């Protein structure tokens, strides 16, 4: 991507554009895991229960067939109306959700099925009972397990990728994001509450965290942005699902051709490389790693990306972010 000279950024327009992404990602009519699978997958069979404590409706798992490829799916599940959303805890899993996911991850490995995960959560449920049952332990264990799975793992950020509760099912060989998805270390409101000392500053926080799909791609956290239909996935869920299904199938075909050991090695390398830092060491102490260069490269990308926040790679579109 060439380093273009760009006009100065309109901060206000930028904030509006970013916030519109956040709102689209959270749109209640946006298709969630089961709706997406219902469109582009066949033979969807949900399985239930963590074998320890319960079955968590906020996180769904099972088998599905995508373009002829049999997979294990794992995904956050929000509701599309209030009652359903309450039942599904607004897509915020409890520890038993992550433990169910782990059971399915192990089953996928046991039977040589690739894994596809769908990420769409404000975060793991922060309720007191979830703390008692080890929310942090469940997330940490799920992350660790995913890093070692000897089967392909395709992850899609479909809506909100919120913090550790998202990452717990998002350690993939490849990480896709829908164009209007967002991915962040903490919710914009949470970030604003802590750093700006008011949730009112959520928009500034959203901008500062670079949470849009395009920026996440520039950071190397997301590998590929999948275009949504004009107006967002909720405007035309079927087209959105179809585009996503095709992208997933493509990635699955690529990954299933790779030896499982090579996959695990590459997955380790993928996450091992993420991070931006430099050293205070004098040049005399030896050749400096190209970490500084990587960081600068990322910053260049982000700077250049300021006017094309979340621009989808694979499909050219007319809609502009500041529209």
């Amino acid at each position, binding site marked *: 991507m060439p380093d273009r000279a760009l006009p100065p950024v309109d901060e206000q327009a930028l904030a509006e554009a970013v916030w519109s992404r956040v709102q689209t990602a959270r749109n209640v009519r946006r298709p969630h895991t089961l709706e997406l699978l219902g469109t582009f997958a066949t033979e969807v069979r949900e399985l239930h229960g963590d074998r320890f404590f319960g079955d968590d409706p906020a996180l769904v798992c099972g088998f599905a067939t995508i373009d002829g490829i049999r997979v294990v799916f794992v995904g956050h599940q929000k509701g599309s109306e209030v009652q359903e959303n309450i039942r599904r805890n607004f897509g915020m899993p409890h520890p038993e959700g992550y433990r169910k996911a782990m059971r399915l991850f192990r089953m996928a490995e046991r039977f040589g099925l690739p894994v596809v995960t769908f990420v769409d959560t404000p975060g*793991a449920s*922060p*309720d*007191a*009972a*979830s*703390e*008692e049952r*080890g*929310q*942090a*332990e469940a*997330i*940490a*264990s799920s*992350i*660790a*397990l995913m*890093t*070692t799975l000897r089967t392909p793992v395709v992850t899609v950020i479909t809506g909100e*990728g919120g*913090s*550790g509760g998202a*990452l717990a099912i998002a*350690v993939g060989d490849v990480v896709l994001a829908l164009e209007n998805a967002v*991915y*962040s*270390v*903490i919710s914009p409101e949470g*970030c604003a509450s*802590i*750093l*700006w000392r008011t949730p009112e500053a959520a928009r*500034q*926080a959203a901008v*500062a*965290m*670079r*949470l849009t799909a395009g920026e*996440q791609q520039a*950071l190397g*956290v997301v590998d590929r942005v999948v275009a949504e239909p004009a107006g967002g996935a909720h405007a035309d869920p079927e087209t959105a699902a179809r585009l996503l299904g095709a992208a997933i199938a493509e990635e699955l075909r690529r990954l299933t051709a790779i030896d499982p050991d090579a996959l695990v090695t590459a*997955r*380790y390398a993928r*996450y*091992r490389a*993420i*991070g*931006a*830092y*430099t*050293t*205070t*060491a004098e040049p005399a*102490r030896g050749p400096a790693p190209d970490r*500084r260069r990587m*960081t600068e490269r*990322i*910053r260049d990308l*982000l700077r250049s990306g300021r006017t094309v926040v979340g621009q989808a790679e694979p499909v050219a579109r007319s809609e502009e972010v500041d529209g």
Partner: protein
Amino acid sequence: MPIKLPFRPRRDSVPSDLWVQCPGCGEMLVEKQLEKSLRVCAKCGHHFRLRASQRIALLADAGTFQERDAELVSVDPLGFVDSKAYPDRIAAARATTGAQDAAAWGTAEVGGIPVALCVMDFAFMGGSMGSVVGEKVTLAAEHALAARVPLIVVSASGGARMQEGTLALMQLAKTCAALARLADAGVPFVSLLTDPTTGGVYASFAALGDVNIAEPGSLIGFAGARVAAGTTGEALPEGFQRAEFLFAHGFVDLVVPRAALKETLAGLLGYLRPRPAAARREAADA
């Protein structure tokens, strides 16, 4: 057999006649006395937080800690600005603490046993984990794997460092990946959770010890207590998210007072010996 645990003199030590009020019991404590009692209140047992250097002095055999990768420093990958720019926050933290970032790692011996030791420092930006902390934990784990020595990580952190965005979040994956390799290889990891260990640090490496040890009274949790209370609208259980609560719920093996920590660690390391590199596990696949 009691082990002597003298703190080495610190650059930044306060005048010896300073008083501190104990947040546990309200008692006024003389700083000098507090230092002698390992910064544990003699009246109520409250464990004051330790700086990384103090923690290392407490746990490592005298003179054995050799810091590694001390030269790693944070950059500002997002150009993050809130009321302050991130680089200014880092600079301020460096000036206040004398540390480069919120973790230090190195090789050391504990009771004569060589280990990889990584220690977090809550004084540096709330012990938040950005790329440098994640890298140091990972480097420590990778050294433990390569050298086949136990890994000890002492956590003290409010969670992931927001100013590094998802790059901070990805440190959860990076550190957990390194620990998963350690576990597969039969190299032990002891996680020592100190006050406070919350958010993304507890939800990654800190939770995954073969043995998890906590200091008494330490705050350990995923979400903030205010958030938890707000969610349920009910009163939180007594001692919520404290070390003893975690112990009761099965997430911590031992709650160990500071004075007994080193002896406990050394004793456990007598059992937690890395499996020889040759011993591979093959599946009983017929």
